[in-house]
């Protein structure tokens, strides 16, 4: 919608056939990029050109393209989801770049997130963590009137802050330890802040942390990269809350 100035960009994109083969950077030059395009629309244009040349397009994950499904990823110039704060790759626009820029595009790199192809990785590990305890055990038909459970506005807001996590994995990708503690901390916090989560609070935090460790995610060493790269601005205070919950459970859980 602003005045159009078309850009030419140099892209260095990670290409990898599958998880069993070695990948490499491949250089592409792309012309006619408008400022109003989103980053993924720019890649669409590249892929369109590649297909017309009979070459394989670059594979990347994406779906809603409005910053909420958590499907898109990409390390852009070394930053998960690129340079703009609290913005997913699909909501990043080309007006943040300049004519003749070189942009390096890589997949998430973490052992628990193996590359499937090119920029697409397997984030199945996050589902496994949720499966270990990211729920309340309520079956359909049991619930009492919603207003029978009162939640203070402050706690509801904090729970919502944590619950906004889109499960994209930027926190893991940004962390030198590939720690998933922001992701797990956000889910543990959401339930720890709500009365609905109290009954299973201790089992939940113990099981989710155990699963996280089993899957090969590293530990937190307080660098704060996760918070800085989180497209939803999830605060690391959620990690602190998880640690408190964990300590509480580690001492008090009935199984001990």
């Amino acid at each position, binding site marked *: *919608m*602003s005045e159009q100035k078309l850009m030419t960009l140099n892209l260095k994109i990670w290409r990898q056939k599958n998880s069993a083969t070695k990948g490499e950077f491949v250089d592409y030059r792309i012309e006619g990029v*408008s400022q*109003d*395009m*989103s980053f*993924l*629309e720019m890649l*669409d*244009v590249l892929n*369109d050109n590649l*297909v017309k040349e009979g070459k*394989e*397009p670059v594979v990347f994950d*994406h*779906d*809603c*393209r*409005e*910053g*909420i*499904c*958590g*499907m898109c990823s990409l390390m852009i110039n070394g930053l998960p989801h690129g340079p*703009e704060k609290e*913005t997913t790759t699909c*909501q990043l*626009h080309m*007006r943040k770049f300049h004519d003749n820029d070189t942009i390096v595009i890589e997949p998430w790199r973490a052992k628990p997130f193996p590359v*499937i*192809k090119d920029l*697409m990785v397997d*984030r199945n590990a996050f*589902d496994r963590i*949720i*499966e*270990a305890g990211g*729920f*309340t*055990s*309520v079956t*359909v038909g*049991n*619930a*009492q*009137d*919603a*207003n029978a*459970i*009162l*939640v203070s*506005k402050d706690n*509801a807001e904090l*729970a*919502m802050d944590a*619950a906004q996590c*889109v499960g994209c994995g930027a926190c893991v990708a940004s962390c030198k330890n590939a720690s998933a503690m922001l992701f797990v901390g956000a889910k543990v916090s*959401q*339930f720890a802040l709500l009365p*609905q989560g109290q009954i299973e609070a201790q089992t939940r935090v113990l099981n989710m942390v155990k699963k996280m460790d089993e899957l090969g995610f590293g530990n937190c060493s307080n660098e704060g990269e996760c918070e800085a790269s989180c497209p939803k601005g999830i605060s690391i205070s959620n990690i602190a809350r998880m640690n408190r919950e964990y300590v509480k459970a580690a001492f008090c859980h009935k199984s001990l």
Partner: protein
Amino acid sequence: MTIKKLDGKIPEGRVQDKWENHKFKLKLVNPSNKRKYRVIVVGTGLAGASAAASLSELGYNVDVFCIQDSPRRAHSIAAQGGINAAKNYPNDGDSVWRLFYDTVKGGDYRAREANVYRLSQVSNNIIDQCAAQGVPFAREYGGYLSNRSFGGAQVSRTFYARGQTGQQLLLGAYSSLMKEIAKGKIKLYTRTEMVDLVMVDGRARGIISRNLVTGEFQKHVADAVILATGGYGNVFYLSTNAMASNCSAAWRAYRKGAYFANPCYTQIHPTCIPVHGEHQSKLTLMSESLRNDGRVWVPKKQGDKRPPGQIPMEERDYYLERIYPSFGNLVPRDVASRNAKLQADQNKGVGPSGLAVYLDFQDAIKRDGEDVIKAKYGNLFDMYQRITDHNPYQVPMMIYPAVHYTMGGLWVDYNLMSSIEGLFVLGEANFSDHGANRLGASALMQGLADGYFVIPYTLGGYFGEHRPDSVKIDHPEFEKCLKTSSEKYKRFQSIGGKRPVDDFHRELGKIMWENVGMGRNEKGLKQALSQIPELKKEFYKDIRIPGSPAEVNVELEKAGRIADFLELGELMALDALERKESCGGHFREEHQTPENEAMRDDENFAHVAAWEFQGEDKTPIRNVEELTFENIKLTQRSYK
């Protein structure tokens, strides 16, 4: 070729009693027998995830399929504004009856009364269930749930979790799904697409899937198949749907004999960010809750190119407030969208393209302060600014309608069973509850109603009449379908033409938007009906799909989906042509009142059109289900 009169199997009795009576009459399956049944659920949005979790809780074995890498990413996640329920917590005169009434009226009297009443009845249970799951709904200071108002209603009945209600409800349903997966009762297939429905002896008995990572085709057998695969808005190429949202599961079921009902009912959402350029891949919606505080206007003068701040109050036309004084900016979506188009058609549209109107928050900011507006809509304002580079706290937003939701879908009876025995369809994928126009905050309600509170009962009723039998995966029909599917995908790759598949999708989208979009007429529809088959021929001659079929091949996936969209687009145009009236989202320009409102023809069209496939390139049959209104009087919808 005979036209069938379809039976919706609506139970007897007063509308208030139908569901209760029906639940009692439905056969039950005893707990130890439930584990002998297997159910396939395709799709993990609100309807699919809630159905899979509820059925597993009851004791059935469930296989769940989603095309994304995780069930949590289904497009229900993008719903922003809220979910309706008739709790009447604000004490403002709401009731089950009023929600029922508003929904039937909002749907322009083209929905089944009995279904809508049931939806309103269970709406309250949904809120209870979600609150118990730990969905962080907005709260008042006393700790009670908060409500807001939405288009098409004069009460505040919408529950919300900031501007991310769909996300939070989906994560709730997803958490229930994961809880059941942990118990080993549900088998989850991610990055897997359904490519065909398998029928044995006239009943749906399984599916063929394609693994999107390995390209492998696989057979799955079950006692019933549930499709919860969402809507088909992406037939327009540009829509607010996610990139991978598609009609293929539903379409392939249609080709196997499931009737497709009211395909022409499309909802064009009024508050979307206008198109910016040719390379646009999708449109972004902003919750219509914005219309609670934003005022819609255009300049009174045609072609007025002054910036909005320089247009004085008396030269602005707040046209919704002017035309509809009682609902104002909160008229239903179809009315708001059509009026925006009317303004643009009269050369009063704003922005570089002229295809936009203003949504202005200046008065609300003056009244409540920027902080209050920020607390309500902060995330939407941020999103708008990220996309457009304009600050909506300072300049009015520009909005324009975009394709958003499809009310049409596979025909289902009161039990949510399609015209194929054992094939059930839930959520947006079915046609049942919204008539010709859906009210805001009702999609989430319907998805969860179907999954949590309807299918657990009606599927039991079906199983009560069909004992588990000996049909196994080695049945020849499965092998046959697997072969047909794999050949179909081989064919796409063997074409070896020149154009990327998206080219065809874009072209189809243009034909659809111009001729089967917000305003439709006989000439345009006929034009679409001649252009689409041409495009389809071209598609099968000229697509180019590089890469191997045995690994991730996005072009190949898209080819399968676009091939189906090409056929569906044609059916939509045909349905729109045959429905010679205007109703809700279907606006035939030949049928309007002198004030440009939709003019229904209740005498000839108070029915559902359910299309029956007759074979490749043959005209399908238009079957009919008559709609009877015993409780709500049909009137010209008025929001004035």
